[in-house]
């Protein structure tokens, strides 16, 4: 019916009637339903990909939140720790704890004799177990000479075995864990001396070369410091630039140029910002390498356009009537902006800023260029301390040969995703809470 009117030319006399039984209408409704289905399908397809991606990450990563411990009886042999019996703290500090650990392992498994078997045995627990003993003795020197049953962190290979990543049916050569190690493990397991616990070290340690010791706190701190610099620089500058462009700038070639520039910067490949940071901040200004300060500045330049664009559209959404009312009451243009327009646009600006920050948080490529791809064990304490960030940590772990880093890589991705989702969630809440229809 409407088709007939739409399609008919004014000079044609023939009028098309609706087909009998409404066949055309049925067809059109079918097309309507199909079209709607296409839309739904695309959203579902995108959602499915998201679920698949996140699912595969969680599937490989969840086990990194657990860590295997084995219970061994440990003798704090005075011969190793304090042969002279002086109780001198310096002596206790520098004693041979590695040797002590090895001796205790031998005592726990007296059946092990061969040289290569002993070597395997020493790798049964984490190489850092000795340092744990050291810390215990220093905390309580009275331990010297005593024997205790202690839970000791297992090495990465044993950890993989507990988590079922080692196929026992394979030939011995084809697995990372030998038959001898399996036998020791089973002996402990049968005596209830193997346990998996929540891996707190993953959250409180910085990077380490031993997968069972490696944690993300260093990278998370680095990310926070970097983001803080990014926020401090890009938020005020971005908002002020947006205010100028939206509220004060005359429309001329110059402002056009600035606008094209900003839009262009929003799309410049992030790696180019890395090249800029390398050439300008490191080589020209001589800032320290791997510092969150420099990373923050590079990321600030990168997120600045995002914030400016978001802030401009938020300012634009404030209706002119508000400005006119304020002007009418005698406010100066700047007062109009700072007292009325800016507070009203703030939720929109903040949403844009959070999204920009989330982008900066997930960014890797520019930081590769300014030396943040580094192995850093100390948790950074300031803006010029060497630091790395979460995505770079992921990149580094992904390139480590040790098998146990695979699950840790996924776990770190999960943490990063959690941060990103949280930030996006806040942005959405903010948008929803303050969304205003004028």
């Amino acid at each position: 019916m409407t088709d007939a009117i739409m399609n008919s030319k004014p000079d044609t006399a023939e009028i098309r009637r609706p087909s009998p039984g409404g066949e055309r209408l049925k067809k059109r409704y079918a097309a309507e339903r199909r079209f709607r289905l296409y839309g739904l399908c695309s959203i579902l397809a995108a959602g499915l990909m998201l679920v698949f991606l996140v699912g595969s990450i969680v599937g490989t990563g969840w086990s990194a939140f657990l860590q295997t411990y084995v219970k061994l009886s440990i003798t704090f042999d005075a011969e190793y720790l304090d042969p002279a019996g002086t109780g001198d703290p310096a002596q206790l500090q520098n004693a041979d704890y590695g040797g002590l650990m090895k001796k205790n392992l031998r005592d726990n498994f007296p059946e092990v004799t061969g040289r290569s078997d002993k070597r395997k045995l020493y790798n049964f627990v984490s190489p850092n177990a000795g340092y744990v003993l050291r810390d215990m003795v220093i905390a309580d020197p009275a331990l010297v000479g005593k024997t205790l049953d202690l839970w000791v962190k297992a090495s990465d290979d044993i950890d993989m075995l507990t988590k079922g990543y080692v196929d026992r049916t394979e030939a011995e050569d084809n697995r990372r864990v030998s038959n001898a190690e399996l036998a020791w493990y089973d002996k402990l397991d049968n005596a209830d001396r193997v346990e998996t616990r929540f891996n707190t070290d993953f959250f409180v340690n910085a990077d380490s070369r031993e997968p069972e010791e490696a944690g993300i706190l260093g990278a998370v701190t680095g990310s926070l410091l970097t983001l803080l610099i990014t926020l401090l620089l890009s938020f005020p500058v971005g908002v002020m630039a947006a205010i100028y462009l939206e509220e004060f700038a005359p429309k001329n070639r110059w402002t056009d140029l600035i606008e094209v520039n900003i839009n262009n910067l929003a799309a410049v490949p992030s790696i180019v910002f890395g090249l800029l940071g390398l050439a300008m901040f490191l080589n020209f200004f001589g800032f320290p390498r791997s510092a969150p300060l420099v990373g923050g500045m590079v990321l600030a330049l990168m997120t600045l356009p995002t914030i400016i664009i978001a802030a401009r559209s938020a300012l634009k959404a404030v209706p002119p009537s508000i400005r006119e009312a304020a002007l009418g009451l005698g406010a100066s243009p700047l007062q109009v902006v700072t007292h009325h327009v800016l507070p009203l646009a703030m939720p929109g600006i903040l949403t844009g800023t959070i999204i920009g920050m989330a982008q900066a948080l997930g960014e890797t490529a520019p930081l590769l260029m300014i030396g943040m791809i580094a192995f850093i064990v100390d948790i950074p304490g300031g803006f010029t301390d060497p630091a790395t960030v979460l995505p770079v940590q992921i990149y580094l772990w992904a390139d480590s040969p040790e098998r146990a880093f695979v699950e840790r890589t996924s776990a770190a991705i999960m943490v990063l995703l959690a941060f990103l989702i949280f930030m996006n969630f806040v942005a959405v809440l903010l948008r929803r809470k303050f969304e205003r229809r004028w």
Partner: protein
Amino acid sequence: MLKNSLLKAIPLALAGVVAVAAAAEARDQIRIVGSSTVFPFSTSVAETFGKTSGFKTPVVESTGSGGGLKLFCSGVGVQHPDITNASRRIKASEVETCAKNGVADVIEIKIGFDGIVIGNDKGAASFDLTKKQLFLALAAEVPVDGKIVKNPYNTWSDIDSSLPNQPIEVLGPPPTSGTRDAFVELVMREGAEEFPELKAMAKSDKKGFRKISDSMREDGKFIEAGENDNLIVQKLQANPNAMGIFGFSFLDQNSDKIKGANVLGVEPTFENIASGDYSVSRSLYFYVKKAHIGVVPGIEEYLAEFTSDKAIGDEGYLTDKGLIPLPAADRAKFREAATNKTNLVM
């Protein structure tokens, strides 16, 4: 409100001043840059050093050997790194650049070997290759019946009927990588020299010979696959027809998934590489700026830790990470160089 905008400008100025001030300040932490191949070993030593010595844990950056030497050679002073790792020896031109920038005294330490392995999926066919066969499979141009032609081989069995009938597909390092340089030097050149006509050419026309021996084929049979060896390992698993060229430590860690091809009948095992029977291996180095010893605390102790038998000895902890140790005599030599701070001699 007005005051706010003024206050906002202050962090900007502060950040600038703080950074300039910090750049010139003394540093109590060793800074290491350089090769991504040495990175796992260097970080391991750094971590142990940090835990046992009471000094701060050194910061180790992975920049590639070239990038590391560039940073290392850019000058003396705490704003420049103290140590650089390299998966090849420093070049004469780089020594010159160093000297020009005041980095005249450099200590060279060789830490061990890194085997280069040609591997494939555990379930796939096993290979026993000669260097000649590898050259024929991977060079851009090869001699056929005395003439140099574009590489005609598509499957391994085309080269030698004893090899599996499987398409040639090798994932290898890009030309910017030190692993590639080493592979070319140790496999391709030696493979090429097994042809009498090329051997003659090597004597008369070195440049022409190098052009043939050093050029990898570019028709998709040899795939430059980036520096991430872990990714290569996983790509091999996904594709049983593919072979990959990567460092021994990755074979060591993934021995349940991939296997190494024998070269000249020798299996790439720890023992065979250490004894020199497996011939495709290269040396790893690091270089120390002498002027920084005494200024940045802990460099001497770090050197002592790295050159100790506990680290790079036959049963040192670096061997667990896949480093192939030097012969004992060489270790002693470099340990002495470290304690006496002997200058690098080219």
